[in-house]
């Protein structure tokens, strides 16, 4: 599709010809869209300004779309540009998610260091599962990557159960900036609790306990509210620090809800315990609104980087491998090398998306990374337009909006009509069938009407708009 400029705009340099946003108006639209995205949470009900113009549901929806845009863009690099296939993309997200959570929980990484490290780790594992692409293509490669989808969750569930909690949900600490300084240094032991006041959810108290003396059994350390009840797990984040031998050396508490808290330690008879508590203020991303400001800009950045990769040397090599791997090899492209690069890059994107998903939810379960999520991501890519820079954005937005906004909106009305139309089907079956049938139906209609994806239709529309009122 030729890049059509408005009348009177001519390219006089190659730089102009290559630019993505050729005119000031193109740039303006893109910047406006970005600013609009950043403003959304400020207008939401629980946003810091408390304006209440937009339902919180939509802030979460946009954040989840942005996370999956990253994952599907990774898939786009592999499937859309390089023509390989992966049925294990959700498993790579699981590595990013569990990797970053474990790094933070067990090794004291912060979110900011856990994100790149877990992304690279996912990339390396993706590289490993890309090795079969040396010999096999198409359906056979799909089967080979399916192995990742079975092996990785199994490894996380059984051999690594001590770290991941197996089938139980795993708590993920909130990303923090800080703590800034330490303004208090208190001692607590089995008789003296530490009482502190937690502020607003964006600027939180971080309390780290450094165990200075433990004799006998490990103490039971608990967080109580003033009534003396134990604080529910969702209201605070706790990280346990261990030394190389697995011995607990400290804890870190972050209270995310305002109120007064007390940390107490109880020990069995005869045991002694003492800890030094350091308190500091930190900027917390524990709330959905705050995570939004990490997720959305990162998603935009990763889309931008992927687009540039696609239009430079590496991307052209990917496309060469996809369109004609024999010609590519004979014309100087190390086909296997570039397949592996695509697997690596794709897994890095999946890893980042997985990590963000973990920190957005504050809690992880293996159920979030099932095979059907991998397949759903492929469906998103195909509907959005594989091999188009905006394919991931369109596909994820379409399916997520369909699932989370359109179908729930239609549902009550359908529940009235359908039992009358199909009296021979039990109502309970209709209720459970509405979502999958509408979802599947929308997919089929889309694939029949626009098999090249929404992104293709978008480019056709853009050209039609620019050359209006002429038809061709």
């Amino acid at each position, binding site marked *: *599709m*030729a*890049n059509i400029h408005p009348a009177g705009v001519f390219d006089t*340099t*190659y*730089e102009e*010809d*290559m630019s993505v946003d050729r005119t000031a108006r193109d740039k303006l639209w893109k910047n406006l869209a970005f600013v609009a995205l950043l403003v959304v949470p400020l207008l939401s009900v629980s946003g810091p300004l408390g304006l209440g113009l937009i339902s919180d549901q939509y802030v979460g929806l946009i954040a989840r779309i942005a996370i999956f845009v990253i994952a599907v863009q990774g898939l786009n690099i592999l499937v859309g540009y390089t023509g390989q296939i992966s049925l294990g993309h959700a498993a790579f997200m699981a590595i990013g998610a569990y990797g970053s959570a474990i790094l933070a929980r067990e090794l004291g990484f912060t979110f900011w260091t856990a994100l790149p490290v877990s992304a690279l780790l996912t990339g390396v594992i993706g590289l490993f599962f890309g090795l079969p692409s040396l010999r096999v293509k198409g359906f056979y490669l799909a089967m080979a990557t399916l192995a990742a989808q079975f092996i990785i969750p199994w490894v996380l569930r059984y051999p690594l159960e001590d770290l991941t909690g197996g089938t139980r949900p795993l708590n993920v600490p909130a990303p923090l900036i800080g703590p800034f300084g330490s303004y208090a240094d208190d001692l607590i032991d089995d008789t003296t609790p530490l009482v502190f006041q937690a502020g607003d959810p964006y600027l939180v108290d971080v309390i780290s306990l450094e165990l200075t003396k433990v004799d006998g059994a490990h103490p039971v350390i608990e967080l109580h509210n003033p009534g003396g009840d134990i604080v529910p797990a969702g209201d605070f984040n706790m990280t346990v620090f261990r030394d190389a031998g697995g011995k607990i050396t400290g804890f870190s508490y972050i209270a995310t809800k305002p109120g007064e808290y007390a940390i107490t330690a109880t020990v069995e008879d005869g045991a002694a315990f003492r800890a030094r508590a350091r308190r500091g203020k930190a900027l917390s991303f524990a709330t959905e609104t705050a995570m939004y400001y990490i997720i959305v800009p990162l998603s935009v950045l990763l889309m931008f*980087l*992927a687009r*540039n*990769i696609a*239009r*430079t*040397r*590496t*991307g*052209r*090599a990917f*496309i*060469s491998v*996809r*369109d*004609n791997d*024999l*010609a*590519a*090899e*004979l*014309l*100087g*492209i*190390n*086909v296997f090398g570039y397949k592996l*690069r695509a697997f690596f*890059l794709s897994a890095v994107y999946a890893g980042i998306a997985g990590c963000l998903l973990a920190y957005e939810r504050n809690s992880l379960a293996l159920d979030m990374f099932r095979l059907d999520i991998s397949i759903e991501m492929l469906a998103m890519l195909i509907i959005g337009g594989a*091999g188009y820079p905006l394919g991931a954005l369109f596909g994820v937005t379409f399916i997520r909006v369909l699932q989370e906004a359109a179908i729930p909106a239609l549902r009550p009305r359908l529940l009235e009509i359908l039992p009358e139309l199909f009296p021979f089907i039990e109502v309970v079956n209709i209720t459970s069938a509405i979502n999958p049938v509408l979802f599947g139906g929308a997919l089929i209609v889309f694939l029949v009407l626009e098999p090249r994806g929404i992104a293709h239709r978008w480019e056709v529309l853009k050209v039609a708009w620019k050359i209006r009122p002429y038809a061709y």
Partner: protein
Amino acid sequence: MPVKLHVDSVSLSFGGIKALQDVDFQVEAGEIYAVIGPNGAGKTSLINSINGFYAPQQGRIIFDGRDMTHVPPYKRAELGISRTFQNIALYTNATVLDNLMAARHIHMKSNMLTGALFWGPAQREEIAHRSIVEEIIDFLELEQIRKSIVGTLSYGLRKRVELGRALALEPSLLLLDEPMAGMNIEEKEDMARYILDIHELQGTTIMLIEHDIGLVMDISHRIAVIDFGVKIGEGSPDEISKNEAVIAAYLGEGEH
């Protein structure tokens, strides 16, 4: 003239089928060397062996004095061997420009990281190579279609784009596998003109495979004839046209 390419007694077989038997010839630097032969004679197998796509069971491929028998195909391209294909093998869903730019791969340095940022050196590199590619577009008269998707182009144009892509590698040896197959007279003459121009302007050594004997006689300096995987004759166009074995292979014995 130094020897550009030495195909040193190459034998290639697929199971019981002997595609090439002890084929031996030398292409000198700066000449247009043609390989002709009936269908199924082993011409394309020969080019594929030179390229490294097939691994001959016997013999060696020596390029610029270097034994390339065990060098992988993409490295041979880096050393200066480029080619076109009998059944066009372009990147069909990419534009003409991207097809040509993709062939600049071996001359470019940007990687995933610098490309992703598209800033500074990576952008300057893109522009520098774009202007080289534009010269080729200019030479092959592809200006009108530079941003067309290759899959939408006509056969004749695609053949020309493929020649452009082979040139974008800046090869010192250009292998052309039936560059004029399926073309009408006019298109063939255009193609012949391009081949002669490439040879004259860039001094590229060209080895071509072609069915159109008349055309081959007109443009090549030396010709080798292959039949059933065996070289049955070699020489200047004049010598070939008088060679008894060649006449027999092409016209059948005792009928001329």
